[in-house]
């Protein structure tokens, strides 16, 4: 893979690059089975996690990945107060530049912030989720999990269910899966599935249509009430209308479909308790694969902090 500084979106990668990162993730996952679960690849490098939005999962996944590559990890706590005070991203960038970080992993509620940071930093910037825009490391771990389960992504059918409008996961994961030859469909409440804005992705309105489509993977999104100041749909209906209920689980079991979810799950909303223990629920694999995928991403990026100019 040609040297590249940042990972901001899946769309910016060639299909070859995507495959390279996935292949390396397989090798990274093998490291977990050794007695020494650590390699010296990023020894002496510094990794900063800069999260403007709370996310224990993604942040710790990146931190574990960085530790396993022997990097030094710093957690930059962005207090909500400094955001309220109106510290601009540029001021934060100046601070980061002074810290001489090699990798910056950033999450922000505004779409496009990682790109702004990447433009002004020599460090390799990894987008760990920006607004409703992109979440490329999640896309890699999802593609990796499907590839691991089925041997290939090409030809698989994946239906993504839930809040497409607010979901960076839906955007990035559908992008990587389609690039790798999978078919993707969306289903969700009307106001949360923007129409005519994503070409080539069919939209379903109920589970019968989904089953008729014969998918391989049911990908559930988290209902993100925290992103909605004004409700988008009636609060009580979601599970019955769009969730994996026990009846639907029986059908999913019959058809031997897999269930995925980026976490954290709302039990009883997108998914029933029983589905969490279903034999083809890949949610825990996704978590483990997330570390491997993020190690591979860190490994393949090239910060410009070493270059003298």
């Amino acid at each position, binding site marked *: 893979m040609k040297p590249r500084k940042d990972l901001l979106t899946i769309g910016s990668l060639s299909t070859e690059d995507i495959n*390279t990162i996935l292949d390396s993730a*397989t090798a990274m996952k093998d490291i977990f089975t050794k007695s020494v679960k650590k390699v010296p690849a990023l020894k002496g490098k510094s990794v900063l996690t800069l999260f403007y939005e709370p996310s224990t999962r993604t942040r710790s996944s990146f931190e574990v990945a960085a530790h396993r590559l022997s990097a030094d990890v710093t957690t930059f706590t962005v207090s909500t107060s400094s955001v309220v005070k109106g510290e601009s991203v540029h001021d934060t960038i100046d601070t980061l530049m002074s810290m001489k970080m090699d990798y910056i992993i950033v999450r922000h509620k505004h779409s496009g912030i990682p790109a702004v940071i990447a433009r002004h930093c020599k460090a390799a910037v990894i987008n760990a989720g920006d607004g409703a825009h992109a979440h490329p490391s999640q896309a890699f771990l999802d593609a990796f999990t499907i590839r691991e389960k089925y041997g290939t992504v090409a030809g698989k059918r994946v239906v993504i269910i839930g809040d497409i409008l607010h979901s960076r996961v839906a955007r990035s994961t559908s992008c990587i899966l389609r690039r790798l030859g999978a078919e993707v469909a969306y289903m969700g409440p009307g106001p949360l599935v923007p129409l005519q804005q994503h070409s080539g992705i069919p939209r379903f309105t109920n589970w019968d249509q989904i089953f008729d489509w014969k998918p391989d993977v049911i990908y559930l999104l988290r209902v993100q009430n925290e992103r909605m100041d004004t409700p988008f749909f009636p609060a009580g209906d979601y599970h019955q209308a769009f969730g994996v209920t026990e009846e639907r689980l029986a059908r999913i079991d019959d058809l031997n479909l897999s269930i995925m979810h980026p976490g954290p799950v709302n039990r009883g909303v997108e998914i029933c308790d029983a589905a969490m223990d279903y034999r083809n629920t890949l949610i825990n694999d996704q978590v483990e694969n997330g570390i491997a995928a993020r190690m591979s991403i860190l490994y393949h990026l*090239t910060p410009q902090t070493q270059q003298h100019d």
Partner: protein
Amino acid sequence: MPTLGQDALEAALDDWAAHIAATCPTGEGKLALIGVISHGDNLAQRLIRRLAAKGIQARYGALDISLYRDDFDMKQSKPALRSSYLPFSTDGLHLVLVDDVVQTGRTVRAALNAIFEYGRPDVVQLHCLVDRGGRQLPICPDYTALRLDAPANARISVRLQETDGRDEILYT
């Protein structure tokens, strides 16, 4: 201009296997050949087949040492990693590291670091197909099939049937 064709390579491997058979302990499960990816793994497999023909059993392992390199910052393309294959503990074994070309010694250093994360072998030896000189580290192969004192800017490329479709060593 191929320096060495298929026949010469086969002959070199025969001598190499004979050397291993003559010098390494061949007791029950004691010997393992660990190839350094890429090419080293293929060479190790060929050697193991030759040893098997002599009635000597050697275990096979392969190492991708990319994650142990010390030249990680270089502005070059990073190929996809390959999985290391070492499905046994190396405790107490006699290991033979098999590499295609030894030059600076940095790959070998990385391989040594990697290998010690799989256990504590009794002995580690370094065998290589080509030693082209130009060492930067205090590392010396225990066995060299072919010695070439090449200037630093010369290109030596090893091609093998398994990965490149034909056997040859190019020296340009």
